[in-house]
């Protein structure tokens, strides 16, 4: 028990070596002005900028706007993906009709849609939300389809024996056993949405965290750029963590019922 703890502390300590070296190294480089300030920035300066941006409320404003965009796009895309995935998994004919078209559409790299969507929707919010929903749609569709398609046949037979209605079948059999796959889809979809909101804001926005990074670049202020990058990475990670813990609690809740 105690040995385990020592090993854990050791692992963490080893993990901290590289970041600490990086911080110290960057501080020294900046102090001695070895590289131009345009390229490197002292870590303490990034921290100061971070707190400044927080205290003026600027950072939170940008975050709130990006968050709103991500959630709208994600909900739109993931819901559509979920519905279509379910339909395709339940009816083989609809799969045969829809799948070829979708797989052709999915060949287009996501960023390739930007010029088209901008011509259709302008550079406003609609463009961003639609673009983000594209990213959320495909992972959700594929994972919903695979989750529901992969439900063991014996479960379905039991449900048929009990003469479950379609809604009851969906609620009691299909969704619970597809849950892990659905969560994979949600995680991928949200991660993709987060990536795309940053991308969209780099190109066409006057606010949002992506814009914050571009703004820092335009001012040649590396510290703002770094704050932006770190915050974007951290929020993305936080969303992933939230979903994972939600998944763990949901699957735990669902495990005993599936055992019965």
């Amino acid at each position, binding site marked *: 028990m105690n040995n385990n703890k020592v090993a854990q502390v050791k692992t963490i300590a*080893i993990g901290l070596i590289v970041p600490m070296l990086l911080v110290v190294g960057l501080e020294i480089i900046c102090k001695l002005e070895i590289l131009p300030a345009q390229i490197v920035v002292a870590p303490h300066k990034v921290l100061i900028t971070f707190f400044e941006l927080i205290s003026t409320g600027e950072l939170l404003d940008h975050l709130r706007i990006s968050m709103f965009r991500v959630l709208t796009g994600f909900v739109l895309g993931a819901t559509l993906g979920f519905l279509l995935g379910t339909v395709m998994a339940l009816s083989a*004919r609809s799969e045969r009709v829809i799948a070829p078209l979708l797989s052709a559409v999915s060949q287009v790299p996501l*960023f*390739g849609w930007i010029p088209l969507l901008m*011509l259709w929707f302008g550079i406003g919010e609609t463009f961003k939300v639609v673009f983000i929903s594209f990213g959320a749609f495909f992972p959700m569709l594929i994972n919903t389809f695979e989750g529901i398609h992969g439900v063991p046949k014996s479960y379905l037979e039991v449900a048929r024996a009990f003469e479950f209605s379609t809604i009851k079948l969906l609620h009691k059999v299909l969704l619970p056993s597809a849950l892990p796959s659905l969560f994979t889809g949600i995680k991928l979809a949200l991660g993709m949405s987060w990536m*795309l909101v940053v991308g969209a804001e*780099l190109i066409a926005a006057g606010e949002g965290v*992506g814009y914050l990074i571009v703004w820092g670049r335009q001012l040649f202020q590396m510290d703002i750029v770094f704050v932006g*990058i770190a915050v*974007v990475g951290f929020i993305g990670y936080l969303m992933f963590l939230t979903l994972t813990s939600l998944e763990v609690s949901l699957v735990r809740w669902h495990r005993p019922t599936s055992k019965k």
Partner: protein
Amino acid sequence: MPVLSIKGNKTKILAVLEGLLLPVIIIVAWLIFSTLNILPKNFFPSPKEVINGFYEVLSDGTFIDNLGISVIRVLKGFLLGSTTGFVIGITLGMSRFLEKLITPVFNAIRQVPLPAWAPLLVLVSLGEMSRVLFIAIGACYPVVLNTFEGVKNVRSDYIEVGKVFRFSRVQRFFKIILPSSFPATLTGLRLSLSISWMLVVAAEIFMTSGGGIGEMMWSCREDSRMDLVVVCIIGIALIGFIMNFIMQKMEMFFSFWRVTLKQSR
């Protein structure tokens, strides 16, 4: 059997027909709407315009030139990123200490959404190298992760056999670890190439002035040449499809020893 295969063929043909149903409906609707001039021309170019646009950019060479630039750029970024990723993946997989040392930093960096690196790379202003690096960052992750998994999943009895034969580190790497982790690396490479192709378009939109299909789309958008944007999208999708196809074939070709691995279990 023959009866079955005829039936199989029939259902196959039927399935293909069903798959063509939606695309045909869409194209017919597109034709009808564009001949009736119901939809605004700027937003929905007619199929004829798209084909004319295609001829235009094909005959003046811009389409092929820009596609070529993008493909070469992707290959550069992909090679740089996947080689780096392979080396990192192998090292982390083989050394417990380096795994503990590097993994936290690697995971932290990996959290940053890929587009966010673009402004940083612009600021560092390395020209073409910025675009290649941008692609390489995205190309590196899947190779690291899959190679690492592959190395970690090398069967321990193989390693033990190596010990019995007193293999040196180098021998152990070339005779045991590399061959048994390679199928996993290939999966990583396939993912990596498709991410690279997605990122090249982004790189060319975020960091213009180096040519390429993404930049071509971007300037077509600025000129409101919707027909050409559509041509570019189809071109990008086709190249992406071909790349993925080649990688899948390679993965299948190399997976023969993955199959034998499973059988020996």
